[in-house]
């Protein structure tokens, strides 16, 4: 109850009781939100992890192909081969709402209608390793986009879960006990003053009766 000042009145009591009900309902709702977010998060994060491991391996192997390609022809040839890409990629971004966490969803669009149209060079001066590199990078692009979605979702969900958990804890361990204490305090205070009012009344009544008896006695004697 430290830090809370209130008047022990009936009005204050009603107000606090209402607040306690609201706090309890909020607590329950937030707890449900946290649990559901956590469930979704665990699903997303394990897929995220699986996909990242797979993707990192694929990128490493693409890098190995690239190193081989570089070792066989001059650097300038590789550089000029890749200088003017035929393909260009753009994204449309949509929003998905997971338990009020807004996460981005991407769809890729290619300028050229044929997604296989990726070789920006003639095959005469380059080697097969370069083709392999390009092909494997092109193959993993959908995975990269999916991974981008997943990683962002996981990060946003993680921070939302953290926030929600703090709120749940604050309600459970601070707000609700505080309201309960205050309500108990006011109830006790009100009961106490009621009792003192009753005793006072009883005492007054006793005094009045006593006075009446004395008056009657005096009148009878005279």
């Amino acid at each position, binding site marked *: 109850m430290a830090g809370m000042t209130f008047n022990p009145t009936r009005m204050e009591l009603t107000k606090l009781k209402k607040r306690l009900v609201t706090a309890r309902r909020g607590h329950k709702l937030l707890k449900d939100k946290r649990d559901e977010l956590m469930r979704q998060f665990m699903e997303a994060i394990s897929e995220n*992890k699986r996909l*990242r*491991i797979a993707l990192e391996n694929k990128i490493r192997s693409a890098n190995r192909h690239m190193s081989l390609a570089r070792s066989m022809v001059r650097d300038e040839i590789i550089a000029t081969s890749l200088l003017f890409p035929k393909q260009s990629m753009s994204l449309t971004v949509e929003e998905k709402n997971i338990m009020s966490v807004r996460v981005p969803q991407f769809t890729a669009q290619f300028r050229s209608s044929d997604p296989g149209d990726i070789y920006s060079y003639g095959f005469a001066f380059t080697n097969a390793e370069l083709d392999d590199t390009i092909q494997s990078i092109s193959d993993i692009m959908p995975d990269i*986009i999916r991974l981008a979605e997943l990683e962002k979702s996981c990060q946003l969900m993680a*921070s939302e879960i953290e926030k929600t958990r703090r709120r749940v804890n604050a309600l459970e361990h601070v707000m609700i006990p505080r309201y309960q204490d205050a309500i108990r305090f006011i109830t006790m205070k009100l009961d106490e003053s009621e009792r003192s009012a009753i005793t006072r009344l009883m005492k007054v009544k006793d005094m009045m009766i006593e006075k009446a008896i004395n008056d009657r006695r005096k009148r009878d004697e005279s």
Partner: protein
Amino acid sequence: MYKIAAMGDRDSISGFASIGLELFTLDQMPNPSETLHNLAANQYAIILITEALAMTLKDDIAKYKERQLPVILPIPGVSGDYGIGMKAISDAVERAVGSDILKDT
């Protein structure tokens, strides 16, 4: 319309040019952190970044963690394997759950 960019050393990312990503190689960027902020402000939704470069731009990347866009995705480059991507996943689990429960699975 959003775009995808790749940042890092030329050897690691030149392959991505062929499928239509925009490349920002180290030799073109005098100041990579400025480039990153420019990209983030200019309709780039996904920014691939080599782990070696991501290491040096840690603080800049952290600024975009809570934002919806862009997604900054660390990828392994030709040289240097720092496990930044996996680290980010464990960090997220740790934040959400309280401890890294996926550690050895």
